[in-house]
């Protein structure tokens, strides 16, 4: 069985770090998913793998790049899956959104995909205070022209998910069962300590309530997954070497935050639910 996952994430959400760490875990063969044999090519991840093995952050993926590689996986029941895993520059999504038009190759990827993983760097998502949370004594009197504003991040993401559903032809009258949706809250270690102990769905409701509501309203519960992810467990620099990271190895770092808030070092759990 071949399964193609569409991994969606804008610039700097950690797609390349996740891919490199996921490859390492699959090759370790200790998780719920493991690599059977070897991928047809590791070239798209060569740089990222080399960098994190050296205790440094991976460089940013070129904004024009889009590469996929096929990973032969097997789960604990012996079921074999060929997973198509993409890597690309997150600016491509931003360009689609800004132009409000989608290239044909992206449309084909959406139609062919068997699951959507949306990566959100959750610590960067925060609701602005408004008159409900920070009441006014007297409102300001100036009325700004309508051009001078920025659409909130959660509204941008809702609109983008609607695009995906439209292009895919998923329909909206009933909840979606296929393709399943994974909201992967990345860079979990960046969250304030008080939030790191919460269930991922509660963090999502607190920081992006429209996304939480939209996903709940439009996906079947069995087809909707909200997990936390820290691929590296700590920030790495592109210049300075993290010696502990080198000595213990990348496989000693990173975890998934499960729906009940527990942490598990098996990063393959982040995709197991989707295949």
């Amino acid at each position, binding site marked *: 069985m071949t399964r193609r996952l569409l991994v969606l994430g804008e610039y700097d959400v950690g797609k390349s770090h996740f891919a490199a760490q996921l490859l390492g875990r699959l090759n370790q063969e200790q998780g719920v998913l493991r690599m059977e044999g070897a991928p047809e090519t590791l070239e798209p991840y060569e740089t990222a793998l080399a960098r994190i093995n050296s205790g440094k952050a991976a460089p940013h993926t070129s904004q024009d790049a889009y590469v996929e590689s096929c990973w032969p996986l097997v789960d604990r029941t012996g079921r074999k899956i060929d997973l198509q895993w993409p890597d690309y520059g997150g600016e491509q999504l931003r360009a689609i959104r800004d*132009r409000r038009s989608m290239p*044909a190759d992206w449309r084909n990827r959406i139609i062919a995909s068997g699951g959507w993983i949306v990566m959100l760097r959750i610590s960067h998502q925060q609701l602005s*205070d408004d008159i409900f*949370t920070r009441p006014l004594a007297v*409102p300001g009197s100036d009325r700004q022209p309508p051009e001078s504003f920025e659409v909130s991040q959660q509204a941008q993401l809702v609109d983008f998910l609607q695009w995906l559903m439209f292009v895919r032809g998923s329909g909206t009258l009933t909840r979606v069962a296929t393709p399943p949706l994974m909201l992967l809250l990345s860079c979990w270690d960046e969250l304030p300590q008080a939030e790191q102990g919460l269930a991922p769905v509660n963090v999502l409701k607190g920081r992006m*309530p429209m996304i939480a509501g939209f996903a*709940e*309203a439009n996906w079947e519960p069995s087809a909707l997954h909200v997990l936390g992810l820290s691929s590296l467990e700590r920030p790495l620099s592109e210049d300075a070497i993290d010696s502990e990271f080198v000595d213990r190895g990348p496989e000693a770092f990173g975890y998934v935050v499960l729906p009940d808030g527990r942490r598990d070092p098996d990063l393959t759990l982040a995709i197991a639910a989707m295949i």
Partner: protein
Amino acid sequence: MTSCPDPKCGAPTLTCRMGEATPTDCPVWSAKKNGAKDDASGDDALGMVRLPWSGAALGSAGLAFLTGRGDPCVVALVGSHNAGKSTLLGLIYQQVGRSGAIAGSPFAGSYSLEGWEAIAHALRWEGNVPRFPAHTTSGGGRAPGFLHLARRDGEGALVDVLFADSPGEWFQRWAIEPGAADAEGARWLAERASVIVVVVDCDALSGEKRGQARSDTIQLLRRVAVGRCERPVALLWAKADEVVSPAIREAVREAARRVMPDIVEFETSVVPFKRDDKTIEPGHAIARVVDWMIGPRDRGFTLPSPSPHHSDPFFAIGNAI
């Protein structure tokens, strides 16, 4: 040319997105007329997929796309210029953005998110003190732009709600001369709304020109009553933190009840306000309005239950004998 080249603009059917009084005043419209190419033709050549909604307020094309999937609830906000209609819309959206829910149901999407954000951003602390949203422009359009929200109700059904974002000048004109050419947008909306909310301006009703404001408000209420055709109507006191004298408040209330005995009342404000020694928070006040606007309501009639008239006892099963 019959449409604006800006894909986010609904002119000439809707008002110009750039705020110009007529399309010919708009540089985008004029550039197209003068032969400038837009991006769309290049996109088509590259096989780009364009979407049937722009994110801005929905015009006729957007409505056609949306109404194909069901019968939306159309909420008409009727009120004079500066009454607080856009602020009310901003409050509604901002509460959805903060809760992820509409009237207790999960938010299921919107095809006018940019239009909502254009209003609601003014109510946020984003580099500025929150302020009233910009006025809705009055020029040119023949129909209101609609702001859309969808929710998933308790039975799993998708419910679309359209809020009309209309300039107050339309209604001021409509109240005086309903057949006037520049009241076409108000007529369009009054004929199609599912529910009507008459927004009255407490600031105007308590200011220097309160006498004129009272007269205008009563005239508008009477005009709504003539054309409502049994549809639900609410009287909404906007800017409720401003103190309206009991005499004026009662005069407006009495005028409303005289012509619409079933009219319901609400109060909203962007700041907390006092009622009966209690402090009413803006969020609580707006939630009550939204519940009424889009909640289930009595249709005003009851379908008779058919009762079979047969002598055969078989058909009497399940019926009282």
